[in-house]
């Protein structure tokens, strides 16, 4: 609760997720230090690595997001990084027909 109130105050409404430790972060992710409190470090992960994490561990929920990201052309290494991390790229080519 205390962590949440600190983060809400300093980070414009960001919320500490109790399951944060379960999040998988790709090895080559780049991070930016946002805050260094006495007991809490707040880091920002680069967008492409976040997409890789979602593509590998929650592809069903993020199918459209990944397709959108690839189509945007803003993440040129996304496809390679999904393959490198044993992601199933074919999954993003599937469409549930009506």
């Amino acid at each position, binding site marked *: 609760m205390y962590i949440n109130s600190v983060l809400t105050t300093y980070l414009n409404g960001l919320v500490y997720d109790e399951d944060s430790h379960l999040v998988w972060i790709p090895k080559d992710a780049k991070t930016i230090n946002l805050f260094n409190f006495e007991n809490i470090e707040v880091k920002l992960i680069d967008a492409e690595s976040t997409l890789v994490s979602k593509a590998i561990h929650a592809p069903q929920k993020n199918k459209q997001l990944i397709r959108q990201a690839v189509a945007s052309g803003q993440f040129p290494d996304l*496809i390679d990084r999904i393959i490198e991390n044993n992601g199933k790229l074919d999954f993003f*080519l599937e469409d549930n027909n009506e």
Partner: protein
Amino acid sequence: MNRKALIEKINQLAQQDKQRRIDPRYLKIMGFLVAKGFLHTNKKIPLNPNEHINLEDALWVGRLVEPRVLEVLPAAYERFKKHFSGDAATIEKLEQIIDCIQQQDNHEIDFYGMSIEKIKPWFFIRLRDNRSKSIDKRKVSKSFRFKPETIKILKRLKNRTGQSETEILENLIAEAESDRFN
């Protein structure tokens, strides 16, 4: 499939996804679920907390556009039944999920591929309106037949403490329960 063909196919599907996100069914369901506080979105969509939802449309959105809809739909249906209509088979499926959660049954059950573990937490969240109670907080009606003397005592206690009769009884039951285990 080579890289170029793969990107082309993904672009094509992304275009289709984009079209689906402006479909009236998507806007209607999302407008309702976001307004109620089940989902959040960073897109500007019209909020419709009083919308009537067709379950078939909600399933279309969940299967083809936004899978999170399948995750929250049973809880949304349970809280706001009057807002939903649909075919008997879908309603039966939703009722099975609700029963399973009420009975705390660990039975393997899913809702169009969405596991009960993913669906369950949404039954206990606090919604934006702060009015509708979650399944574990909702009061259940129960009748008792008391002796007149007991009723008099209950009324006296109510006047003395300022608590409602229900609160007095709930506190006594909680005390009895804690005495049993201490």
